[in-house]
């Protein structure tokens, strides 16, 4: 049992799962190449259609299980948007729900063994975060004009401190998309890598293997939690940024 360790054959490849691969044939990965990214994103779309479209097909006044889940998700995000951004944020609900449902399903699909987690890639989360950042910034200026800049001018602080605070506010504003994207990708990547490391240890010996498997189970449970929480965090931060754009005055 201990042979692989001594022989150096114990393979820890916790990052292999994040590799982007061609699904068909050989060659470089062009922008249009069908890869595992394509497949798992398509599966996310499929799952979303199954839950939100097929699940609500009956339009039952007394909902079945699937319809209940769809309605709960809808209500959850709708309430969040309404509570955080106010009534005038409701019209952005479809966009926010799109983000939420995509991240939620990508996270959960990534938890399937042998799967690929699209949201563990900074390329994906950065696009999501920058889309939110640019939209919110443009929206802020369109809705409020130059008075959107009052977001950085903390009028409740003493006058002397305001320029310093403004600098800090501006920096924190531009750090938003970075933290927004890295938080999501980092959480998922770290979780999945740890899971893989524990799984690697499961090859080792009689004593370590059961502990490693217990570890896998525990980390997996944690990852289920993290998947939901990160989708929630990303969404509620989007709502908060949107609120800043709609009501920039402190």
């Amino acid at each position: 049992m201990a042979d692989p360790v001594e022989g150096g054959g114990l393979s820890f490849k916790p990052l292999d799962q994040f590799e982007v691969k061609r699904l068909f044939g050989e060659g470089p990965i062009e922008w249009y190449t069908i890869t595992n990214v394509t497949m798992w994103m398509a599966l996310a779309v499929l799952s979303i259609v199954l839950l939100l479209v097929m699940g609500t097909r009956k339009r039952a006044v007394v909902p079945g299980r699937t319809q209940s889940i769809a309605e709960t998700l809808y209500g959850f995000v709708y309430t969040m948007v309404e509570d955080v951004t106010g009534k005038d944020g409701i019209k952005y609900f479809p966009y926010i729900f799109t983000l939420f449902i995509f991240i939620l399903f990508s996270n959960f699909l990534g938890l399937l063994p042998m799967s690929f987690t699209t949201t563990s890639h900074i390329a994906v989360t950065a696009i999501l975060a920058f889309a939110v950042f640019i939209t919110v910034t443009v929206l802020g200026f369109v809705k409020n004009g130059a008075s959107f800049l009052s977001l950085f001018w903390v009028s409740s602080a003493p006058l002397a401190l305001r320029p310093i605070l403004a600098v800090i506010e501006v920096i924190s504003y531009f750090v938003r998309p970075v933290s927004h994207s890295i938080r999501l990708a980092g959480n998922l990547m770290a979780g999945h890598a740890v899971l893989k490391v524990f799984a690697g240890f499961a090859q080792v010996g009689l004593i370590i293997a059961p502990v490693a498997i217990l570890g896998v189970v525990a980390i997996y449970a944690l990852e289920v939690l993290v998947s939901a929480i990160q989708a929630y965090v990303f969404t509620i931060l989007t709502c908060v940024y949107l609120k800043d754009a709609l009501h920039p005055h402190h």
Partner: protein
Amino acid sequence: MADTPVEAGAEASGAGMPQLDFSTFPNQIFWLLVTLVVIYLILSRVALPRIASVLAERQGTITNDIAAAEELKMRAQEAEAAYDKALIDARAEAAKIVADTKAEIQAELDVEMQKADAEIAAKTAESEKAIAEIQDGATEAVKTVAKDAAKEIVAAMGGKADARTITAAINARMKG
């Protein structure tokens, strides 16, 4: 041991973390945008309006049901009030009827009593008169019998009785 995973991973992916392999970025970004647009279209065209309408319909149903229940409750309360009122009215009516009947009976009774009293009085007076007549008759008869008897007795004793004297004597006796 601690170095092994990192090294193995690094070797496997060639250039460290696959996340930082920029050659795959265009691919990921392209498919992400496609996915987001598809999800957005499906949600905004089909799923969200449908769920919203289902929720609105349910809300409507619930509101209607509550309104209907409230109306029924109100009607029940009205019916109860009407019932109570009817009960009170009926009680009052009954009490009135009882009182009226009592008064009527009393009045009738009074009239009957008076009539009976008057009748009794009349009968009494009549009876008294009759008794007086009988008494008078009896006195007369006694007088006549006494007169005759006295006349006979006087005649039997050989005397000739003067009728006026006898009558006077009898009258004096009768009074005594």
